[in-house]
């Protein structure tokens, strides 16, 4: 075309200058982008540990209106069936949960699972950080009131997922050498948020990937070596050792949780990132009552634990860090647990959410402001006086 071959004066022709400018702009955008992608430790769409044949779209880095797609009734139905299958199907297998949250190293949790249809589940963690035990854990839910699920696919979370995201059917693939139906969750801005592989025969979730808004994988969970069997785990022996952690109450509905405000508990109905209060429970410990509040948008889950009191003077296994401008403590080694004290309440946050969401959540919760100069001096003189007062 003429526009790209102006013979008059290659240096002064405005068309050529515009072309050079366009070429420069493209290079300015493409080269750093390529370098960032090449140097990044996390790939925009990471390869699954299991060989999959996916016909789905790649995770979109830049949201575009064209990427929006209508919600699929088939996708919603598949997710609902997956949540039911996690309860009603008898299965066993190995679950590997990988997170890349607030730390670059991430964390991996490997568990062996045996589940009997409609009832007991035995979970034994094989590899974990200090936050998990290698003891086999037995749980029983005969009335179906607990959010039982696999890979984050529970009835409650599926309902929230459909509220906050657009779920679409993305064809078939394979996971754990089994044929799988693929369902994707897209954000309103057109970026891919998560992808699920559901067993074609049983609809049990076999794999899940979660992406942040920058198309980085922040969580990758797989259920491998899956066997479906009518055999239930051996019946749990009656009695047994007393539970050192104290039983939690049944899940409390949101209305009942909000009523706890009258007793002085902090119960925000929502947290930043579109996280809604959807569950909660209480338990009694040797140091008092602990309240657990669960917030989620269907994919990200934040648990907020509250207990009246103050943090111990020395927290073994915790490291002081700064999040959202506040000094708090993070549990080693994966720093998934964050804790601090404010106004006579100890807050502990555990999150499976993007780092930005965690920062925002930490930022909106109460923190003690550093005292002013005169208040600090006054408090200091009072303490000094109390130290030297023989009658104090």
């Amino acid at each position: 075309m003429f526009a790209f071959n102006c013979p008059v004066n290659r240096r002064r022709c405005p068309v050529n200058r515009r072309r050079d400018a366009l070429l420069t702009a493209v290079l300015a955008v493409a080269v750093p982008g390529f370098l960032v992608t090449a140097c990044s430790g996390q790939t925009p769409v990471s390869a699954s540990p299991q060989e999959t044949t996916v016909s789905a779209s790649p995770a979109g880095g830049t949201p575009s209106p064209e990427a929006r797609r209508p919600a699929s009734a088939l996708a919603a139905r598949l997710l609902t069936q997956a949540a039911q299958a996690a309860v009603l199907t008898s299965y066993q297998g190995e679950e590997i949960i990988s997170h890349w949250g607030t730390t670059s190293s991430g964390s991996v949790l490997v568990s062996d699972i045996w589940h009997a249809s409609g009832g007991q589940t035995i979970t034994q963690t094989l590899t974990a950080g200090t936050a998990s035990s290698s003891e086999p854990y037995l749980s029983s839910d005969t009335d179906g009131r607990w959010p039982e699920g696999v890979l984050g696919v529970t009835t409650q979370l599926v309902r929230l997922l459909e509220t906050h995201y657009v779920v679409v059917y993305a064809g078939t693939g394979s996971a754990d050498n089994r044929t799988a139906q693929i369902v994707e969750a897209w954000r309103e801005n057109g970026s891919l948020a998560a992808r699920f592989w559901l067993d074609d025969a049983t609809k049990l979730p076999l794999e899940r990937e979660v992406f942040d808004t920058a198309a980085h994988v922040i969580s990758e969970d797989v259920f491998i070596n899956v066997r479906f069997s009518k055999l239930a785990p051996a019946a749990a022996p009656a009695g047994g050792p007393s539970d050192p952690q104290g039983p939690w109450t049944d899940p409390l509905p949101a209305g009942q949780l909000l009523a706890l405000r009258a007793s002085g508990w902090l119960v925000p109905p929502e947290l930043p990132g579109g996280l809604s209060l959807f569950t909660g429970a209480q338990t009694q410990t040797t140091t008092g009552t602990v309240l657990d509040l669960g917030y989620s948008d269907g994919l990200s889950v934040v648990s907020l634990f509250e207990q009246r009191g103050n943090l111990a003077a020395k927290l073994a296994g915790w490291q002081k860090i700064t999040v959202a401008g506040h000094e708090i403590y993070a549990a080693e080694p994966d720093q998934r647990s964050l804790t601090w004290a404010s106004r006579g309440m100890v807050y502990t946050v555990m999150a499976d959410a993007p780092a930005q969401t965690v920062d925002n959540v930490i930022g909106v919760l109460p923190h003690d402001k550093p005292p002013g100069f005169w208040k600090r001096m006054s408090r200091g003189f009072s303490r000094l006086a109390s130290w030297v007062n023989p009658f104090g």
Partner: protein
Amino acid sequence: MSHLGDRLSALIDGELDGAERDRASAHLASCEQCRTEAAELRALKRKLSTLLSRAPAEAAMTRRLIAMTGPGGPLPPRRRLPRLATGPGAADRRKTRRETRRETRRPGFRGPVRRRYLVIGAVSLVVGLSTAAFTAGGGGQAAPGPRITPPVEMYSVEHAITTGEVPFSGPSGRPSVADSDATQP
């Protein structure tokens, strides 16, 4: 023949009465040695009288010289430890020196060393107490209640139930007493 001895200086100072002065004068007339001593004593007395009459003039000149230096001039000479003066007139000389120092002190001259030490000590005490109070006032106000180390394991299990990632169900976190091998189907 005995010479005048101590009466010679008394004669020179005019301290002898009539009979004594006549006898001393008669002896001087006949004794060459005593006349010589009397002449030396008179000469010494005149020299001393001359010195004493010149001292006030020198002190006045010193005051004028110091006054010429004015404010901002050279510092007064370094103070020395007072020497214990003895002898006749020592008290007067010490008094004269004190008066001279007081007169030569410039405006704005700092107070005595003892007062300075008191001021420095008071300032140090205030600064030290303030620093200690500022340090002791940090660390937040201790609110009532138990001292808590969050039970991460218990919270992790509860969080896993909430997330639905690990299929815990029912009352959470109860360790199974059954051997895991025995429970496998």
